[in-house]
């Protein structure tokens, strides 16, 4: 396959470093350029996470797109707030192939506009939901479909993680940059939308994937803030119902505590307080049995530098990014629709928005 000429925009997404390390070694891509401010380059892209010398760095997206009309595809790796404007910018510059992070936008008028641009400009858009490419998830789907536990009755998915400290990645816990607008969780509440529920769409996507159904209703609520100075939600539970009757219980919380010492850069093992930085646990209950799965189980434990805390080192690394990049390249070259695209992802975003509305209203919310 002729390598796809690709560029990375903004480069401040939590997953952007994964592309910086995987694009240079992926034979389907010819990585031309990335845009990132000088501050972000200094903070995020040093040492083993530095892009190769041949990748041209630009301070702004527009400067980069103007300088490289040969770009065929882009990775939108900015904040959630930036994604929509970057998408529109890329469409303006005739870029037809976009790999974007998990939150296109929470505003349905913008979502409608993005879908319109895709249709009218015949674009290929893939959403980076990398969990779909993990072997354990594929195995769980096969087991569900095989009927080994019978008809699915209920699902529990925990996607519990640490919360990135604002000094390391400020946009993640800034309501406007994370959610797109500063909207209080409810009347009289100082915390705003944009926290754990925004950051963890995977459980919603996996619930739809395992059940082959869509969300019918969602009830969500927040707990008292775990971290005193956070301006977004960190502890939140969701209880939903799928159209086919399956109950879905989701915990997307930032309930795994960070180390209170100053964080090291880049973030690495030992930085955590709770030993395991990311957890995705799945329980599937069916008429004939149950499945219990840990999707981040493969790893080792150690106590060592830099903090001498007990930490879990995940062994599979970013291996699941390669199948995702394979699919995107194939979709670009063969002009096929990726499995997770703007159209298919919409119900996940709608379910998250319904979750926030439920928090605001104090009642379950039915999706349209």
């Amino acid at each position, binding site marked *: 396959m002729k390598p796809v000429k690709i560029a990375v925009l903004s480069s401040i997404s939590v997953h952007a470093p994964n592309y910086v390390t995987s694009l240079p070694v992926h034979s389907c891509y010819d990585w031309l350029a990335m845009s990132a401010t000088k501050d972000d380059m200094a903070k995020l892209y040093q040492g083993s996470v530095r892009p190769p010398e041949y990748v041209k760095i630009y301070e702004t997206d527009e400067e980069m797109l103007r300088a490289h009309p040969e770009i065929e595809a882009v990775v939108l790796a900015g904040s959630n707030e930036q994604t929509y404007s970057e998408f529109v910018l890329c469409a303006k510059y005739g870029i037809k192939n976009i790999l974007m992070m998990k939150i296109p936008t929470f505003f349905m008028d913008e979502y409608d506009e993005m879908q319109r641009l895709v249709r009218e400009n015949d674009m290929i858009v893939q959403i980076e939901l990398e969990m779909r490419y993990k072997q354990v998830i594929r195995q769980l789907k096969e087991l569900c479909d095989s009927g080994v536990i019978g008809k699915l009755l209920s699902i529990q998915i925990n996607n519990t993680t640490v919360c990135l400290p604002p000094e390391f990645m400020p946009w993640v816990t800034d309501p406007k940059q994370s959610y797109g607008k500063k909207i209080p969780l409810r009347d009289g509440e100082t915390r705003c939308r944009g926290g754990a529920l925004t950051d963890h769409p995977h459980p919603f996507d996996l619930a739809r994937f395992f059940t082959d159904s869509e969300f019918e209703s969602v009830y969500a609520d927040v707990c008292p803030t775990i971290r005193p100075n956070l301006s977004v939600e960190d502890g939140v539970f969701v209880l939903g119902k799928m159209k086919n009757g399956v109950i879905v219980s989701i915990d997307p919380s930032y309930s795994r505590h960070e180390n209170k010492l100053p964080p090291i850069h880049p973030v690495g093992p030992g930085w955590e307080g709770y030993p395991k930085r990311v957890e995705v646990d799945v*329980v599937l209950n*069916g008429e004939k049995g149950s499945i219990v799965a840990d999707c981040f189980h493969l790893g080792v434990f150690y106590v060592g530098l830099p903090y001498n805390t007990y930490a879990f080192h995940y062994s599979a690394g970013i291996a699941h990014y390669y199948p995702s990049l394979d699919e995107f390249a194939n979709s670009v070259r063969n002009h096929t629709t990726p499995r997770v695209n703007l159209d298919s992802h919409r119900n996940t975003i709608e379910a998250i928005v319904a979750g926030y509305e439920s928090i605001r209203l104090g009642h379950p919310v039915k999706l349209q």
Partner: protein
Amino acid sequence: MNFELIKAHVWSAVNDSSGNWSIRGGNVIIDGISYKPTPWRDDRNLNSLHYLSVESASVAGLCSYKATRIEPKTADIDELIYCELDICRWLTDDEIASVYALSNSGKTMSLMLKTKKGILCAIDIATTLSEETSPIIKHEITGTEGMISDRCINEHIPSKDIYVFEDSKKDPTTYIDIDLYVTGLSPEETYTAENIIKLIESRELREAALKNMEKLLKCTEAIKQSIEIGDVVRLEEKA
């Protein structure tokens, strides 16, 4: 559970002047009043959770609570709900203020609760396992200064303390490190017996148990109502 064994153990342990008592249908009748035992409050691990979350406040301000219980298909889901509701109240040291519940086929139920102090709780229950399978149970409490759980990281099925791998068998025989085997009772039977002994011997505990049962009854009614109407039910409104 073998209530004959439990009865024999209780009989040998209680003080003779404790009065009239009998065990019927899983409840203990003392001086004509029926009490529902709460053996989980004598469970060693749950007592450790209680010590860490409430008595020593080792995670400071409580924020959220989660419980998962997957049991054999012969288990009574209403009994499991009752048990986990009480554990939730006990480990958060708080009362339930609102419930939202979903149920599917009578075999699975998921609850979201809020306590009076605002602690957010999720309880997920299923009765889907084979009769021979041991229950899968997990409790987790998150506070401002950390989290507590009766399952280790990467441990989703309760592990055992002794594994005997015989060359003639595929699966090991397992044992847990609790000195309860000497009585011939299982851990659950022992906790039930201990709980009944305490009820028989303490009037104060019996009075507290009656108040506890009343509150739990209100919670279980609220859960049924929530499932019926498909909405949140606030317990203050019910009172």
